[in-house]
């Protein structure tokens, strides 16, 4: 398919055939689910592709966004699946774990009997649509994307089959994290992770999504969505560790909704993909709600990491804080576009937004679009964006003490990211994140050695 500026009038024939096949495979699914998918696929065809002039895609490379030519029915062999299930431990102590490979469920560690008795649901999507249709009908893709990925949302709904529903009822607190692992295991395959987390009043839970490719050099498409709904007074900690292969076209669309006095802490680690588009919108729906959005990205070679955020303050007396840090090497590009929107009656809002870019090479390119739209007067809002390099004087100081340049750079990058990593309360997870950073950084160093 060409990626010309004109709206796509029809779905490519390849995609239409794939969708028919996909629908045929959904035999056990209820009629409303099938109907939803059908509608979504039609919507996908009607919506235009973003163009160079689309404001929500400003500075993004539009030419690499074609979704044709990926295999939506890809599936690796059973042995590969078993092996991946094994590799996917992530944290030793956990409340439950679900592993997908190429959209197929390979492992499902269910919750303990005790949690099940309390009403905690931790189910793969296919099971959830049958057993918990009422929840899905209310919450599945309930928040429309507002940051430019409407077309991709429709495609996700049309093809999604892997995913997790985590529901924690009123007053239930789960300390151990829930883990969902998604693998892309086939060359040219498309994976569509979906995570839906809902908490009742005063509940507390931690959810971790981790994305990987079995083969680091395979080409692929990842089209992930998550919806996080924090009920009154509840708390959700949500992590996304994105480590798709270097040849992946990745989308990750996050939607956070916080009711009265609820807290959502979202943290993203972005390592993989050739072109990664990540959108995060948070809605402070009730008074006293709080959303924390943290992100760290390492981009190297000709990677493009494009992150768009929207903090919507609908209710007053709510707070939100955003910190996105990017380190850029080689000819990498990053885009950060953020907007704080304060509704006319959302008085006493406190909202902050910070983007920091560390350029490790003269060829890297960082774009920042930190925006504010404020319609209430009694608010505290600020944003800041900085872009700079490793300080020569600081580097000299380290060299003078016998620390070689590579190690010194590594220390700087670690120091730069530690502000975000130190916010991870689960120590095991924090060290996984440090490993990911180190691994990527060492690869970069090795290429230059």
């Amino acid at each position, binding site marked *: 398919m060409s990626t010309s500026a004109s709206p796509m009038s029809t779905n490519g024939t390849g995609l239409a055939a794939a969708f028919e096949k996909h629908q045929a495979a959904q035999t056990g699914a209820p009629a409303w689910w099938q109907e939803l998918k059908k509608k979504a696929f039609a919507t996908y065809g009607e919506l235009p592709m973003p163009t160079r002039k689309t404001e929500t895609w400003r500075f993004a490379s539009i030419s690499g966004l074609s979704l044709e030519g990926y295999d939506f029915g890809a599936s690796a062999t059973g042995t590969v699946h078993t092996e991946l299930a094994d590799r996917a431990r992530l944290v030793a102590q956990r409340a439950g774990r679900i592993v997908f490979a190429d959209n197929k469920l390979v492992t499902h560690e269910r919750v303990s009997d005790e949690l099940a008795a309390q009403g905690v649901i931790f189910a793969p999507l296919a099971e959830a649509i049958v057993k918990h249709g009422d929840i899905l009908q209310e919450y599945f893709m309930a928040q429309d994307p507002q940051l430019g990925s409407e077309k991709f949302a429709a495609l996700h709904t049309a093809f999604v089959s892997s995913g997790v529903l985590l529901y924690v009822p009123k007053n239930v607190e789960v300390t151990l994290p829930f883990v969902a692992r998604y693998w892309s295991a086939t060359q040219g395959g498309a994976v569509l992770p979906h995570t839906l987390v809902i908490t009742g009043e005063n509940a507390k839970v931690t959810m971790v999504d981790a994305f990987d490719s079995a083969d680091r050099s395979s080409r692929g498409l990842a089209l992930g969505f998550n919806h996080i709904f924090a009920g009154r007074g509840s708390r959700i900690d949500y992590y996304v560790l994105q480590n798709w292969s270097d040849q992946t076209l990745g989308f990750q669309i996050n939607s956070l909704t916080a009711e009265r006095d609820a807290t959502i802490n979202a943290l993203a680690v972005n390592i993989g993909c050739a072109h990664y588009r990540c959108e995060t919108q948070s809605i402070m729906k009730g008074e006293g709600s709080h959303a924390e959005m943290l992100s760290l990205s390492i981009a190297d070679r000709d990677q493009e990491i494009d992150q768009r955020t929207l903090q919507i303050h609908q209710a007053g007396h709510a707070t939100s804080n955003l910190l996105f840090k990017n380190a850029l090497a080689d000819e990498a590009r990053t885009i950060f576009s953020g907007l704080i929107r304060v509704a006319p009656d959302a008085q006493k809002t406190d909202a902050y937004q910070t983007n920091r*870019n560390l350029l490790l090479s003269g*060829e890297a390119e960082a774009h*920042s679009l930190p*925006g504010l739209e404020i*319609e209430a007067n009694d608010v505290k809002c600020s*944003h*800041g964006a900085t872009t*700079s390099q490793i300080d020569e004087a600081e580097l000299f100081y380290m060299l003078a003490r016998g620390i070689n340049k590579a190690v010194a750079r590594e220390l700087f990058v670690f120091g730069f990211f530690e502000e975000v990593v130190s916010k991870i309360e689960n120590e095991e997870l924090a060290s996984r994140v440090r490993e990911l950073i180190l691994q990527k950084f060492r690869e970069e160093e090795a290429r230059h050695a």
Partner: protein
Amino acid sequence: MPGEDTTALEIDREKGNFSYDIKYAYDAGTGLNEGVIDYICDVKGEDDWIRAFRKKALKVFEEKPMPTHWATKDLETINFDKIRYYLAQDKKPKRTWDEVPDDIKQTFERLGIPEQERKFLAGVEAQFDSEAAYSNIKEAVGKQGVIFIGSTEGLMKHPEIFRKYFGKVIPTADNKFSALNSAVFSGGSFIYVPPGVKVSHPLQAYFRINAENFGQFERTLIIADEGSEVTYMEGCTAPKFNTSTLHSAVVELVALKGAKIEYITVQNWAANVFNLVTKRAWAEEGATVKWIDCNIGSRLTMKYPGVVLKGRGARGEVLSIALANDGQHQDTGAKMIHLAPDTTSNIISKSISVGEGRATYRGQVHIPKHLTGCKNNTECDALLINTNSRTDTYPAISVRGNKNFVQHEASVSKVSAEQIFYMMQRGLTEGEAMSLSVNGFVNDLTRQFPMEYSVELKRLIDLEMEGSVG
């Protein structure tokens, strides 16, 4: 009222709210087509290349869409077919004040123009609708070789100086409104300052719209040759008509090696003027360009003064104050395009939204590859006075290259209740206390303005703040 005290440069809103029933000798009628352009060229007796330039621009204007994919939809309410594009009483400006027709003279006397000139200005030009009604430059400055004339005159009499840069800093196709201006421009100031000449007093222009449904399209080009220095000030007013008026200027500045240009605007159009202006400067090696931009009036202002930093060590600065009251949208900002190493830029923007007013900051900072030692600092602060006041900030910062440092900060605040309480306890009324706070908010910027302007701005803010509380 004409006899009233007009000693200071009046920019309060009511002072400008009057109009005279003028009989225009030249009127191109309403609507825009090639005929209008031929009419303008014929009246002005312009060379063929100017006619061709205008016609080409008209095509570009017609082809370009409105920029409403990012800008306000309010732009769509402009009806280009109902606008009059050229209106003049006389096509040649008068050189002495006595020659100016009485009604026009009255207009400018009420606005305090000759007063200003007598006091300290090195030269002044006053534009009434399409053409300059009065233009004069002090003899001493003229002797230094400074040229200060209108746009057509500049292109015809000194093509060797002005043609080289005309339409180069801001190409016709830069945006829809620069194309419109290029098609129908009339009036404005063309200034040339020879090498090493430092013009000690500011040059000034005054822009006045008198007619209803009229569009003013002045064109300004200032060239400061190597090592020279010049300050230019412009003011604008219009009466309040029932239908909206369009002002769409193009201002190009060229600061050659080591030159300094300071360009000061106090914009106080009536609250139904669409003020859509393109302003950009080139700064060559070691040159400095400083835009001081105060936007108080108009219904919608869209203006983002820019500096293209072309030579090593060039510096660009934008200091901007915007005040948006009920029914107003001040969409202002700045652009800094770094194209040479060791260039620096600074943007400080302060906006105040009163009542249902909306102030928007839109900015662009661009540092391309292979440059080192570039620095940008951007600060934008917004003050919201009333519950339904609105402010937006949309910066875009792109950084590549080595050893470049960019920082951007924005904050939004309101006047603190404690501060007001403290001042009221000491006998100030709430309104006075509010004024004082707002003036304090912009004080660190206005301190850098020429004295007359900072005093005037203070008074204007007092005026705008009246009745904003309670």
